[in-house]
């Protein structure tokens, strides 16, 4: 292979960041050392240094202690343990990896949260002899709290339990049962012996009963946290670039979504609007900026914008509020005290904020909610914060880049905690709830859905009247019912005559109609159901509003597509004829527009597909998305 080809190959690799966590003796450093060693990321002189160190500090007798490749600091070598977050790098022909190596010590939960904050996936180590430990549960919870959805459970030291398949399966089952309470999209269990390399790079012949991929193969195939270019456009202004009297640029990293030249943007929280005049880059100006890119925007109008403001699309704004509820991980010995003033850094905005009340502390071992007056080191709680000024933000689940903050002590300047926004608190709600402490439902949504072997979802069928929305939705629901899934279909028949019978067909009423349907769909999704909704829902903004109500990935927009001529020729209810005759006003497609989805998850063309074929497409899609298990 020529060097240019090799560079080309390297240039095209993507990047997976993962965190490793486990109890002190689970063999984590050995596992990482083995990955680095076997993937040839260790240079000869490093290895000879490790061999030398092995004789001095090693725990493997005469053999080279691969853990020493990883354990960096002198003090921890002396204690024989890892104490902080360390980052390791290796790559394979298809992917580059960054490992955040974090400690198993109970008192270092904060480091785990740190490592998990930027990770796409987590590798959780379990000692096959000991099975799940308190630490395993704690680590899994933190990983889930930080929004990681892909988990690899590496059950290590299988050699010490005679490669016993039953032992492995018991631990896997224990883990699955526990993890049901958490929000993982996928859990991959595999048996390994990190010390000897079994199931690390290649399948081990000592455990022929394990048919899955080895650890490295698994890591190569895991999805990365989606670059959120499909989310709403969010651009926290980081730095105002005043190059000359005629250049004023707003530099920052696109946190989510994308924006194009000429698009209209709004500055929040001020609410002023303007247009994108230029996307300025060293390598030449661009037409578009996408999530993850660091760019400089120039705007058409001269309006006052400073660091900490956010540029968004006027039709997809973040929440703006003076108070918020957030999950907080506390990271220092001095406790978090309500009423005390801290600074928080949320995106590019730093402001003072006061924790008003602690809703509850979450016991990381049992996940129980407990009433507490203060928050101590390594504890996690839902806390209400009062901000010094209105700020724009999203929920952490919707957009981590605009929903995460760090808490800074105003006197010591230390980073004392990390927060993840759950929801904004509007003033009226805050006032009312002074005496009402908000409790989470005892039964989590994921538990309700898990009981039904499915993930909640809202399948939103949209399209012209007569395109086949109801027919396909009905047929799909029947198919789901026959397969034992729990679903509910919302359509004109059961909504227009009851819940929404007070609504007509004016623009306002149409918006309210969709809003109510969206809220009902959300409640049903909360109950763990697969919700199907079949309404024309002609306006993009309305559908976007419903999408916003749901958790990321929950809303599936399905465009049921057929030409207006076809729909009119079908005319199952004779509505087109009446609309053409002028008997019905504001009829979609005739005298009211239909705004087709720009990026639907699924498109069904009912001019070429039968209803049965549409159902098959949808079932495949739902399985690929793991909505159906």
């Amino acid at each position: 292979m020529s060097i240019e080809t090799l560079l080309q190959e390297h240039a095209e690799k993507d990047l997976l960041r993962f965190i490793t966590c486990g109890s002190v003796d689970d063999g984590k450093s050995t596992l990482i050392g083995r990955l680095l060693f076997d993937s040839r990321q260790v240079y000869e002189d490093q290895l000879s240094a490790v061999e030398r160190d092995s004789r001095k500090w090693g725990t493997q007798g005469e053999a080279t202690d691969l853990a020493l490749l990883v354990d960096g600091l002198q003090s921890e070598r002396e204690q024989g343990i890892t104490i902080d977050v360390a980052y390791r790098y290796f790559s394979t022909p298809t992917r580059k990896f960054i490992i955040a190596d974090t400690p198993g010590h109970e008192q270092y939960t904060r480091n785990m949260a740190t490592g998990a904050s930027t990770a796409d996936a987590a590798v959780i180590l379990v000692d096959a002899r000991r099975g799940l430990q308190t630490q395993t549960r704690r680590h899994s919870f933190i990983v889930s709290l930080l929004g990681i959805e892909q988990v690899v459970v590496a059950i290590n030291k299988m050699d010490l339990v005679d490669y016993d398949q039953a032992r492995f399966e018991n631990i896997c089952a224990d883990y699955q049962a526990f993890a049901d309470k958490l929000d993982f999209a996928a859990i991959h269990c595999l048996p390994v012996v990190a010390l000897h390399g079994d199931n690390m790079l290649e399948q081990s012949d000592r455990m022929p009963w394990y048919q899955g991929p080895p650890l490295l193969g698994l890591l190569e195939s895991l999805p990365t946290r989606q670059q959120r270019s499909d989310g709403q456009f969010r651009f926290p202004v980081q730095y105002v670039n005043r190059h000359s009297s005629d250049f004023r640029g707003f530099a920052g990293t696109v946190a989510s979504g994308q924006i194009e030249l000429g698009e209209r943007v709004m500055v929040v929280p001020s609410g002023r609007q303007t247009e994108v005049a230029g996307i300025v880059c060293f390598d030449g100006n661009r037409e578009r900026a996408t999530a993850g890119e660091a760019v400089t925007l120039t705007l058409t109008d001269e309006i006052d914008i400073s660091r900490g403001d956010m540029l968004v699309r006027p039709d997809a704004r973040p929440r703006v509020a003076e108070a918020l509820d957030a999950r907080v991980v506390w990271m220092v010995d001095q406790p978090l005290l309500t009423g005390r003033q801290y600074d928080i850094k949320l995106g590019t905005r730093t402001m003072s904020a006061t924790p008003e009340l602690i809703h509850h502390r979450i016991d990381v071992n049992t996940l129980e909610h407990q009433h507490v007056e203060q928050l101590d080191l390594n504890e996690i709680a839902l806390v209400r914060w009062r901000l010094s000024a209105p700020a724009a933000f999203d929920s952490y689940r919707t957009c981590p880049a605009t929903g995460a903050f760090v808490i800074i002590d105003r006197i010591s300047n230390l980073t004392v905690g990390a927060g993840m926004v759950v929801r904004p608190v509007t003033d009226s709600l805050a006032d009312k709830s002074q005496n009402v402490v908000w409790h989470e439902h005892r039964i989590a949504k994921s538990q309700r859905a898990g009981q039904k072997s499915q993930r909640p979802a809202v399948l939103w069928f949209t399209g012209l009247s007569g395109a086949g929305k109801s027919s396909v939705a009905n047929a799909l629901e029947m198919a789901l019912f026959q397969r034992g899934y729990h679903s509910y279909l919302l359509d004109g028949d059961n909504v227009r005559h009851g819940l929404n019978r007070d609504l007509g067909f004016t623009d306002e009423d149409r918006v309210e109609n969709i809003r109510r349907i969206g809220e009902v769909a959300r409640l049903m999704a909360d109950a763990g159901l697969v919700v199907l909704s079949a309404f024309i829902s002609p306006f993009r903004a309305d559908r976007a509003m419903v999408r916003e109500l749901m958790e990321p990935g929950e809303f599936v927009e399905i465009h049921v597509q057929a030409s207006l001529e076809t729909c009119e020729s079908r005319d199952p209810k004779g509505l087109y004829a009446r609309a053409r005759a002028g008997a019905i006003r504001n009829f979609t497609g005739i005298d009211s527009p239909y705004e087709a989805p720009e990026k639907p998850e699924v498109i069904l063309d009912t001019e070429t597909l039968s209803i049965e074929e549409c159902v098959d497409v949808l079932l495949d899609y739902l399985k690929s998305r793991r909505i159906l298990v």
Partner: protein
Amino acid sequence: MSVASQGAATRMSHLAMLEAEAIHIIREVAAEFTRPVMLYSVGKDSGVMLHLARKAFYPAPPPFPLLHVDTTWKFRAMYEFRDRIAAEVGMELLVHINQDGVAQGVGPFSHGSRVHTDIMKTQSLKQALDKYGFDAAFGGARRDEERSRAKERVFSFRDRQHAWDPKNQRPELWNLYNGRVQKGESIRVFPLSNWTELDIWQYIYQEDIPMVPLYFAAERPVVERDGMLLMVDDGRIPLQPGERPRPRMVRFRTLGCWPLTGAVESTATTLLDVIEETIQVKHSERQGRAIDQDVGASMEEKKRQGYF
């Protein structure tokens, strides 16, 4: 009929992600600190860092000066290159030399690498930071270079003595960096933390970043001493009996003070040759530097004391 792709995720390559991350870090410093400075060592990592800084503030030049801590023992080619680049990018270049050290005649041959590095580099850097009152200093260090670096934060806090406390670092989550300091304290900032050596080379190639000629093989006068190939860059080397500089095809994998930086034999005269050699090399990058040859965590010791 089609199942539309899951959102329109435009996939960024790892290098594009690293670039965006570094630019974000550099801008964050410019926005939050009163008096930042970019340490410029003339080496390839410095070159990449400077290039990223130019990108971060384009069309303006970076809003901070460059600082070169000059031990007076750098290769001549490095001085020439340094002055040319600073002029090209239009940034202020500050050069600091520890005049106490000069007065005492400190040098690697007379005092050994440990004392020379401490006085002319570590102490000199602290002097410069104090003299100008910098509250943030960019460095081009990467976490993959050395074990103790793997644990260092992107924003690495230094106390008034410029010391690093590896056991008491600020937690660093997401891309939310805490740049708060009291007067006299400072932050060392490492925008290239997550880059590997191959990433650096790849980026230099992709962006066509200028490099000191010393990185490329040429015939240079060399003596072999203690297994290290020393280039005789000026007349200050006390030659031992029997030692005579001979021309050999060599190049440098890292650049430092010439008496402390070993050359490697090489025929790599182009950037692609160098990258090819780098990929195949089986010795880690810092091996050519005499200062890392102490037992165990020597770099950690130096950093605790304020070495970059």
